[in-house]
């Protein structure tokens, strides 16, 4: 297909735009100087050393991972079930389900978080055991799972499931052998999106975090409020690399395709 000659140039410009602030952060993390300045004053790994010896950031990093994994897993189950339901029900009901499932995305994150904060305290649970935080993150990730899974189910033929049943597969085996593989791409990209969104969530975490814990964005925010050293850039670069590795791994293991 012939494309206008300018298109590749334009796209490269957009890609550069997308990468520019990240490049800046990555470069700043190798700064030998004491300030988060650009261009860096000499190159060194000193801030990575500082970071790896800073239990606070590592703990926040692990906390973020745990919350993101837990919230994405819960959403994956709930969202996939809802998507399967939409496929099996009448179009009118499916529309209502879709509206409901995208609602957490439509409502402002900050407001939802404040609402949840009041709610959990009214119930006497408060922010204990990170329940409120987890619920907040489930709400954040749910729409992404649902949208991606139901998109991948759009071309799903319900008689595939019937065929499997007629061939002797139980409902569970049918799901595992037929439905699941056919919506895998949507589920994978949904989970990936959900994970990334949860890992980066700020407003929700900042209002709902349990006493004495912090996710990475909160920790970075708290840190940067008072200490503007390249350690923050080092932490971010590290988390970019880790999340990127996760994406690559998911891609190679599950063969992710973004929608269809």
């Amino acid at each position: 297909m012939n494309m206008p000659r300018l298109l590749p140039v334009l796209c490269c410009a957009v890609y550069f735009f997308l990468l520019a602030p990240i490049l800046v952060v990555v470069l700043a993390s190798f700064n030998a100087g004491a300030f988060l300045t650009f261009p860096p004053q000499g190159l060194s790994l000193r801030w990575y050393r500082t970071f790896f010896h800073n239990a606070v950031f590592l703990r926040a990093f692990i906390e973020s991972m745990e919350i993101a994994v837990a919230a994405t897993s819960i959403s994956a189950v709930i969202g996939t079930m809802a998507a399967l339901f939409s496929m099996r029900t009448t179009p009118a009901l499916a529309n209502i389900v879709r509206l409901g499932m995208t609602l957490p995305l439509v409502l402002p994150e900050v407001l939802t978080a404040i609402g949840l904060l009041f709610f959990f305290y009214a119930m006497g649970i408060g922010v204990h055991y990170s329940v409120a935080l987890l619920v907040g993150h489930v709400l954040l990730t749910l729409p992404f799972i649902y949208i991606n899974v139901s998109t991948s189910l759009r071309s799903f033929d319900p008689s595939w499931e019937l065929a499997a049943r007629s061939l002797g597969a139980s409902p569970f085996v049918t799901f595992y052998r037929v439905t699941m593989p056919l919506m895998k791409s949507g589920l994978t990209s949904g989970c990936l999106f959900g994970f990334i969104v949860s890992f980066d969530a700020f407003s929700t975490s900042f209002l709902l975090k349990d006493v004495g814990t912090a996710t990475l964005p909160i920790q970075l925010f708290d840190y940067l409020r008072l200490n503007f050293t390249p350690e923050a850039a080092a932490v971010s670069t590290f988390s970019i690399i880790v999340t990127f590795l996760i994406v690559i791994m998911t891609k190679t293991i599950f063969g992710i395709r973004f929608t269809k």
Partner: protein
Amino acid sequence: MTTVAIENLTRHFGRTRALDDISLSIDDGHFVSFLGPSGCGKSTTLRVLAGFDACDRGRILFDGQDVAALPPEQRDIGMVFQSYALFPHMTVGQNVAFGLEMRRLPRDAIRQRVRAVLDLVHLADHSDRHPRQLSGGQQQRVALARALVIEPRILLLDEPLANLDAILREEMRVFIRELQQRIGITTIYVTHDQAEAMAMSDMIVVMFGGRVAQVAPPRDLYECPGSLQVASFVGQANYLAGHVAHDNGQLAVVTPLGTRPLDGRSAITAPAPARNILIRPESICITPPAASDAVPATVISVQYGGNLTNYVLALADGQQLHVQTATPPSHAGGDRVGVRLADAPLWVIPDCRP
């Protein structure tokens, strides 16, 4: 091997009765077609038989065992879907092997049986392809192989030829019927195409509006339809007003085109007043206008169909007749001709007055 009995099957969708007290029995090894217009309940019957839909009332007996409460996977059926429903993420071989894996057969046995059944459908060398790489007819045969390889008690086919072109459809009719007879499996086939049903079935079940209208072998169905509705759904028909009277000590049917003996299969045992008489287009002969015992008619239109020629004629009183001959067209529109009935017994549609 397997007989199927359906007793008083009833199914509601909301307030509409999709199945209204269906009862039926199917002999072992028979090929039975459910024929009817869309929405008549034939597909619903199949889905209930397969276990995809529940019935509100009634029993389904496979070899005398009530399976109505069993989920589909425990009914031991093979099913071919209109869309074929081949798993797109599996190769042909994997598709066919799926049912055997569910039955936990040893790996070697699976391999052998998959090869055997693919040979049977002439697709042995397509085992590693994906369904989307196959033509419609090939996909159809894979679907058939997948359903047959598990050696089910009964084979259910849901309009399996609907998505094929005309020539392939004819080929597959022969192929499926031949295969079914070779294996001897009890088969239920759903279609809205009467020609298909006639060509393949041992027995045809005609359904209208959730009820069984008639159950009969194809020839009986064509020649002796139980109602006007069945008669017009199964092939083209002319209806002439007539009555049954004694003629030479036998019961005969008197029509405007002449008098012929009453079909022996009819339940009528005494002279009867005005009735609808069924006359198939091929049972009318065209003669020269002056021929003896011929009734004059005018040719309205002629359709050439290769081996057959179809005429529409009008009688003097304006009634139109469809006539089919096995000869090339010998008349044109506007020609005056004579018509007479072939020398065969006539069928009186029961309980149906003109």
